[in-house]
């Protein structure tokens, strides 16, 4: 057996869209241990609450990440609304579900493309992102933004969806669903894809729970945990079950995300179909005083927003525990004992968002 050596992986690496550094302790071609280090792009956004008005901070919260921006804004607003006792109108809650689920579709589609790119299937990557563009176009029409949406605000949402747009959403989903089925069938059935992901990086149900895994990483290991089932926004009025797979490997994580794309389409259809009439926001009076922890299901998993307010415009504290941060210990676990060649795919299957982690 050869001596151990340390191989640096990142912060710049073709498979990493954002910087994280992993020191891989290798024995031959096997990973014996992993030491992560982060902080390359840490922006100290949590600290900014000391200088930003709590309403202005919604824009900062959205900028924690360019992929999960919609749900970041939503989580922060939910926490503040809870402290202030604001009753968000039913229509705004349904519109938040629509925005949140489109956000999930575009995030999962982005991941599928990156995953195809990671194992060298370039044409699959391009076709996947072609579909994602159509989702982004539609989000731009609904909210006015493609990356930062600024749709959610404290007390509701900023823009409505009229009957014409509602029909357009349904038409585009009808048009896109067969295309998504065709593209995702390659991920599910192609022998080359399966050979790179099946049986790789398996995490048991017990390990996933113990290591604090969240989102598709947790559900792929057989745990039916999805915070949307707690009924926040309008999820309590929609019919769905958490998507769960049993194998716990890279393929299972991929399957969960693919099935969630179609689940999101279904949730959007339900939300559009049941969109109640009424206002889309309520006025915000006074300043928040108290504390609250909001928990939501982002595309990458459970996200936690802790807000502590003191009755002034400036908050005492805003803390975000992002899903990627929670998924770092499980990632270290699945990397140990893996082949060096599988490391890029393994890292990708937690769907790492370093921008979120480096909030």
């Amino acid at each position: 057996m050869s001596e151990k050596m340390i191989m640096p992986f990142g912060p710049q690496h073709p498979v990493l869209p954002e910087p994280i550094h992993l020191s891989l302790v290798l024995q031959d071609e096997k990973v014996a241990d992993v030491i992560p280090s982060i902080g390359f792009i840490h922006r100290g956004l949590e600290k900014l609450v000391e200088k930003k008005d709590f309403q202005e901070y919604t824009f900062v919260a959205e900028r924690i990440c360019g992929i999960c921006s919609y749900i970041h804004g939503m989580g922060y607003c939910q926490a503040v609304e809870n402290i202030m006792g604001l009753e968000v109108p039913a229509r705004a809650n349904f519109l938040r579900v629509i925005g949140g689920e489109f956000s999930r579709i575009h995030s999962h589609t982005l991941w599928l493309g990156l995953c195809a790119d990671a194992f060298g299937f370039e044409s699959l990557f391009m076709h996947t992102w072609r579909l994602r563009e159509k989702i982004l176009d539609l989000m731009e029409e609904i909210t006015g933004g493609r990356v930062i949406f600024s749709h959610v605000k404290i007390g509701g949402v900023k823009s409505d969806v009229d009957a014409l747009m509602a029909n357009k959403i349904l038409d585009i989903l009808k048009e896109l669903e067969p295309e998504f089925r065709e593209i995702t069938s390659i991920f599910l059935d192609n022998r080359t894809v399966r050979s790179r992901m099946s049986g790789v990086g398996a995490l048991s149900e017990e390990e996933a729970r113990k290591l604090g895994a969240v989102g598709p990483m947790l559900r792929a290991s057989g745990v039916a945990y999805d915070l949307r089932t707690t009924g926040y926004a309008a999820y309590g009025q929609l019919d769905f079950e958490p998507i769960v797979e049993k194998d716990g490997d890279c393929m299972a994580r991929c399957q969960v995300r693919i099935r969630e794309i179609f689940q999101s389409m279904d949730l959007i259809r339900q939300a559009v179909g049941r969109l109640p009439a009424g206002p889309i926001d309520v006025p915000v009076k006074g300043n928040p005083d108290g504390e609250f922890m909001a928990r939501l299901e982002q595309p990458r998993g459970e996200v936690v927003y802790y807000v502590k307010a003191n009755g002034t415009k400036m908050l005492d504290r805003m803390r975000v525990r992002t899903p990627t941060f929670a998924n770092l210990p499980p990632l270290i676990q699945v990397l140990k004992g893996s082949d060096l060649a599988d490391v890029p795919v393994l890292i990708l299957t937690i769907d790492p968002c370093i921008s979120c982690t480096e909030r």
Partner: protein
Amino acid sequence: MQTETVETGGLYARVAVLASWGYRLVQISCTKTDSGMELTYSFEKDYEILHLRTYWTEDGTIPSIQALYWCAFIYENEIAELFGVTVADMAVDFKGQLYKTARPSPFGAGITIQEA
């Protein structure tokens, strides 16, 4: 938000009870107070969340809970590096190398944002 306040000395024992009941560690967070830091440990079971709260002063230490929740290393190293909280007996201790910060404890007591 319901929190249960525990003495620093009793934190480990209380967390051990939650671990034996099957609670999952959700997060550990830190908030500045006049005399030090307020720490919130959040645990979840069957979607119900439970928060333990304890307080740290500059001359004190917080017990590590990594023996009960190995994944706590990521949160404990974070509060140690960003907030300057002293966590005793960490099994996985990055010794200030998890975050590559330009200055020690950038979120710590007495640090304020400078105008650009």
